[in-house]
């Protein structure tokens, strides 16, 4: 049956739209709600989902053309044959998105082989709808189980909670604990279980997900600015991080007077000797390394019910850019001396601003530091950069009256804020970690030259 694809009305005052890109070619299969084409109107740019599943039969309005709303721009044949080889029946085609999620474990053949309830999959006639429940569908998704492979014991052959639990029990889900090495360095990143994947990849279009109906955003005078790719990735990442990690925030302060003095005293000589500006960042990194060594849980990642304790200390360092934000990583920071840290900090920040970073230089951080203080912020409560479990925020260093031995003194103080993932880091550990960092800063005794 042919189904018309129309130019949708994207807002009350929108009367026409321009097709900027077709995401499918004629003859290609498309699933219902899968992005089919991209449009640009005078208000928004958006991906338009397919109105139904089938094969894209015809494109009537080509890229770059502007047509009134409700115009038929293409036709989908709901029972058409693909001109390309059809994709595997149980595997929905990947959406045409930039990023891909690690594929969930394949439709579990183990469940078919072992689960007693799955012993007679032939009982379901081909094409018959799988009857289950919201709970069953959620569990199936979490454990990567193909419901079509199970037989239900509920009323009318429905797959019930009991059936799916039995399938999980008998090995429908490959437990992550069994497949991952407990320690050591994984040669390649293991495929994360679906439930634990931090960033949902190209499936979620942040630009299209709004808290209020979009019509309510457009009023008065305004300008619409499409998010660049980096902005979209940041939006996705932040949303995913807040959703996955229960954030807790702890605040401490450190007396930086001693370090400020050291820096004042040595910065001219440091620059002359190494042709490198002396900043505060390596002091903070050094102090964090001490804290992370003492509390390895803060230097970890969470994979489902496993905690991945990293043996390296790789410090992610948030760098603000005119067009966004990026977190380059100082690898093996614990093996570098003070000069080496300063060199890495300067080098990475500079190359971040010049768009010269390599992809592997923004990966594999184990802990992050962000510095709202450079913009004069007293303190900030950052969002965890995944897959870390904690991020340290540095406030601005400023002179404040402080009580020392019942006398008021003027000291250079800094607020330290730690955002951490309460799934694995408790307040007790976080505060001890912060105290370690603070102590390291206040009792600095390393020669920086």
């Amino acid at each position: 049956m042919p189904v018309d694809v129309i130019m949708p009305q994207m807002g009350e005052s929108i009367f026409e739209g321009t097709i900027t890109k077709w995401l499918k070619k004629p003859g290609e299969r498309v699933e219902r709600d899968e992005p089919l084409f991209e449009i640009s109107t005078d208000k928004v740019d958006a991906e338009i989902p397919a109105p139904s599943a089938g094969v894209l039969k015809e494109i009537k309005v080509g890229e770059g053309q502007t047509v009134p709303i409700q115009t038929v721009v293409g036709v989908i044949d709901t029972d058409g044959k693909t001109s390309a080889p059809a994709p595997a029946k149980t595997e929905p085609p990947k959406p045409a998105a930039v990023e891909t999620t690690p594929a969930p474990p394949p439709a579990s053949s183990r469940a078919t082989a072992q689960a007693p309830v799955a012993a007679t999959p032939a009982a379901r006639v081909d094409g018959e709808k799988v009857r289950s429940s919201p709970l069953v569908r959620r569990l199936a998704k979490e454990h990567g189980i193909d419901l079509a492979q199970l037989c239900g014991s509920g009323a009318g052959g429905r797959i019930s909670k009991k059936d799916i639990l039995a399938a999980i029990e008998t090995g429908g889900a490959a437990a992550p604990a069994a497949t991952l090495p407990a320690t050591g360095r994984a040669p390649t990143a293991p495929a994360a279980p679906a439930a634990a994947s931090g960033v949902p990849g190209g499936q979620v279009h942040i630009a299209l997900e709004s808290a209020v109906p979009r019509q309510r955003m457009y009023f008065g005078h305004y300008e619409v600015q499409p998010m660049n790719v980096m902005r979209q990735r940041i939006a996705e990442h932040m949303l995913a991080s807040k959703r996955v990690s229960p954030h807790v925030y702890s605040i401490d302060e450190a007396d930086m007077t001693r370090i400020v003095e050291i820096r004042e005293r040595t910065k001219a000589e440091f620059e002359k000797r190494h042709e490198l500006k002396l900043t505060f960042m390596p002091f903070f990194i050094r102090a964090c390394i001490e804290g992370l060594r003492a509390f390895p849980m803060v230097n970890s990642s969470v994979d489902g019910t496993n905690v991945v304790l990293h043996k390296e200390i790789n410090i992610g360092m948030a760098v603000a850019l005119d067009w966004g934000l990026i977190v380059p990583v100082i690898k093996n920071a614990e093996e570098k001396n003070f000069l080496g840290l300063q060199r890495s900090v300067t080098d990475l920040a500079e190359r971040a601003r010049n768009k010269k970073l390599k992809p592997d230089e923004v990966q594999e951080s184990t802990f992050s530091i962000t510095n709202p203080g450079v913009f004069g912020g007293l303190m900030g409560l950052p969002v965890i950069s995944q897959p870390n479990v904690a991020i340290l925020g540095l406030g601005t260093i400023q002179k404040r009256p402080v009580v020392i031995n019942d006398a008021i003194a003027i000291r250079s103080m800094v607020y330290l804020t730690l955002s951490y993932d309460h799934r694995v880091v408790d307040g007790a550990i976080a505060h001890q970690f912060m105290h370690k960092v603070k102590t390291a800063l206040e009792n600095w005794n390393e020669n920086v030259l």
Partner: protein
Amino acid sequence: MAQVTFLEAIRQALFEEMERDPTVVLLGEDVGVYGGAFKVSAGLLERFGWERVIDTPISETAIIGAAVGMSYAGLRPVAEMQFIDFIACCFNQLTNFVAKSHYRWGAPVPMVVRGPSGGGVHGGPFHSANPEMYFVHTPGLKVIYPSTAYDAKGLLKSAIRDNNPVLFFEHKFLYRRIKEEIPAEDYTVPIGKAAVRREGRDLTIISYAAMMHTSLEAANLLSKEGIEAEVMDLRTLYPLDREAILASVRKTNKLLVVHEDTRTGGIAGEIAAIVCEEAFEDLDGPILRVTSLDTPVPYSPPLEERFLPNAEKVAAAARELARF
């Protein structure tokens, strides 16, 4: 500890609160000399005198009007409806005035309206009502409907001490049929907290008031067939204990709501909506209801039996749900 009836527990709560706080007064039809139509207030006039135990004319609007005035004057009135059916006479006063007084004029109304409710005693269409949902739907009112003697006493005390208007429904079927030991010393039961009366893994039955006992009876029948139902007693209908409801559904994944109130617009619908909104992906079956029929309460005993839920009807729905 002595065995105390549901009715005696309520009488004790009134007695002890009047003893504790001189601003608590009781007013209603025949609450004084006669001791109340069901003897809930027996002995109160003798102890506290006619100024605090007030026999009123047969006018529910006069009772509520006087109670509002008393509230404004600094008292904590407990207004009795001889049968809760007649609270309908005061619908305007309660929903337009009592419920909004604090909101609109900053004048709190710390009153309790209480009275015998519910069917199953062949009281007919004018003496068997369950009018709780009119008031659950009205922002500004709290609504309590206990099922045990312990809760009746503890919740009535909480209601009297609460600074908001509270409607307190006393299922008359329970008055002399429910007996339990309750502590002699002062205690309260918090408003807005449900209680799990029976733990179970296969499905949750949510109920309140007389139907809580019916649900427990059904759960015992089911247990013999290998179906373990969790029975939850709401105790307070507004504010509703959403956390407890969701926690139980997340545990058993199946939900049956049982109430004696009629079906359309009963609290089962609200609970079903909450569960669908908050715990859809925890459901392993449809949310079912066992309720009274959408008719007035019949006078004829066989018809009333047909009209009301009973343990067998609850068990039948639970079996269907367990099998799903």
